[in-house]
């Protein structure tokens, strides 16, 4: 075996052996103060699926969540996902996506309709992006503040793998692992929302 081949074998072996600890990370984006309503019987992690993307993994609120969107989205690495990223030089990204819907936000009612109580649902339409940092194989996290979406949850969350983030994770032995996270709040017109924009009340017409 040539020296070059030996180096490749060693590299593959080290990556294979360390992938279980390099892949302990999870990245969660949640809507501030929006409690979840799991659609699935796993109340700890919510519903789950695996997403295959090129370079990023994202998730949009399913229709079953309704207009209030998602309470939280968690994207987790797995050892074989990590190995796949290594093999494709980070071009192919697979993530286990776990999500929980936000609870509905009905306006208050009256037992009898003779005393109207009008309240409104607040949509901020906010969106944001931030680099989230994981340390010590996921034991410590930093830099992922909750999204302030008013009375509703998230419409979409995306986690991006960047080549230099990937290399940093590999070189640091998994003690440091950054990811680029983007999110967008749910709302009637969330596609045109703006970061830290003003809260715009929308009457739901309830009593």
């Amino acid at each position, binding site marked *: 075996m040539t020296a070059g081949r030996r180096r490749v074998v060693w590299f593959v072996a080290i990556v294979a052996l360390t992938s279980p600890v390099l892949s*302990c*990370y*999870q990245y*969660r984006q*949640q809507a*501030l*103060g*929006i*409690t*979840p*309503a*799991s*659609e*699935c*019987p*796993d*109340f*700890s*992690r919510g519903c789950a699926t695996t997403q295959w993307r090129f370079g990023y993994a994202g998730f949009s609120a399913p229709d*079953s969540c*309704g*207009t209030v969107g998602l309470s939280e989205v*968690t994207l987790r690495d797995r050892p074989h996902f990590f190995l796949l990223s290594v093999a494709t030089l980070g071009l192919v990204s697979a993530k286990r996506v776990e999500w929980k819907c936000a*609870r*509905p*936000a*009905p*306006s*208050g*009612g*009256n*037992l*009898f309709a*003779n*005393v109207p*109580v009008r*309240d409104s649902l607040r949509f901020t339409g906010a969106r944001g992006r931030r680099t989230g940092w*994981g340390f010590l194989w*996921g*034991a*410590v*996290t*930093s*830099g*992922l*503040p*909750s999204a302030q979406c008013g*009375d509703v949850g998230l419409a979409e969350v995306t986690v991006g793998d960047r080549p230099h983030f990937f290399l940093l994770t590999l070189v640091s032995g998994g003690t440091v692992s950054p990811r680029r996270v983007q999110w967008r709040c749910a709302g009637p017109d969330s596609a045109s929302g703006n970061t830290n924009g003003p809260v715009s009340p929308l009457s*739901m*017409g*309830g*009593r």
Partner: protein
Amino acid sequence: MSPPSAAPIWRNWHETVSQPIRRFEVGRNGDESQSTIAQYNATASRLRDLIREATDTGVSLRAVGGGWSFTRVAATDGILLDTQRLNYRFNLGPEALAPGYDASIRPVLLQCGISIADVNKYLARRGQALRTSGASNGQTIAGALGTGTHGGAIDVGAVQDYVVGIHIAATPDETLWLERSERRVLSDTALTALGARRINDDELFDAARVSFGSFGLVLGVVIEPDPLYFLHAFRDRVTLNPALWDAVQTMQFGGASLPGPAGRRPYHLELNHNPYESADAAMATVMLRESQKPPGAKAPKLDGGIGKGDSLLDAIGVVTDTWDGVTPFAALVFKAAYQAFPKAGFAGTPGEMFKDTSTRGRSASSAMGLPLEHAQAALQLAREAVLKHQAPALVAMRFVKAGRSTLGFTMHEPVTCILEVDGAHSDRTFAAQAQTWRVLEQKGIPYTFHWGKMNDLDAVRVRARWGTARVQQWVAARQRILPTDAARRVFANAFTLLLDL
């Protein structure tokens, strides 16, 4: 109801229960954008159909809220009803209130699945607040009621103590409205609107409040909030000296040195003791009740910044179980967590102070209610148990006014001391908890268990802890609500059968 999920395993929030289930049902209101009594009743009708199906097929049916209980108290191998989307909230105008009821209290009717977080928001918009809640806000109102969730409000009680009416579906044929005998809340007109049969009976009401889903499906509750108030928090290390223990025993704090301004009676009090630090030291949190927000004080900010990962507590449990001598280092994590909170200068509404939980992953928690005079001895026994087993755990105490619920664990008059042994999910933590329970019993210290936290209850112990008379009273009340064996089987589960309830 939505179509049943294909996934057959239910797991609770803390990942301590994994339960195969026959069917998972997600309860949904017909209109999720506004609370209407027509849709509330339509949902109630569908839930009664579910009870009929369970009765006819002999299958257990249990409702689950936030799934926060550490035990199998909510679990079933039959039909599990997820109530989290059933979160209507209703104002109760004069027409809805019984003659003679003080309308200035402005009670509200809450559907079973509304979260404490959403109740806080709804009440804040009305200029009101909950009198107390748990330390976090993800429980549903029916779940918090059914398990006796408590805070640390020394003159208030637990969640069940401000619930003044319960709307419940126990059989397929009707729904019941339970209230105290001497204090009607809803008018006959209101009950007609709900289609409920009124029962004013103290024994039934006191038993049904803390009944962990065993009396039927709770459809809704009426609670009495307070006018909006603020909690002004102070946190500091204190010495567990005789003056402090005297204050704990008497609930008179004039001689004790607690954080915050002298001479003010705490609204909320808790003591957190790290067994790996000095034996006579604790971190005390005092919250004062204010009608106005103190100038300059800010609500605590708990999101963003450095935080623990989902698996940290689980990992601590594995590491400390695997290697001896590691636990004291793990306890440094707890110490760091204490120091993350400011000593003073933070205040907010109850909804701002007791907010989203940051605890994820597997953990272990046990809480025992006991008389105040045993508080000092109990803390010492729990400390010794943690140290003996080198458990990655902390010991804490909160204090809650005793209530009237038959099986409420905050039953020790006049104020119940709640001893908590919480920590990482570890064999060492379990051993420390078990030793604490065993030694409390050996020392003759009477205690009761939080229904939603780890315990060693069985048919004998539940009667020893609460007293045979109380348990019999609760069982008799359940038999009145559910008069046949078939009806009782529907709302039984392995936990209630083990306890012979």
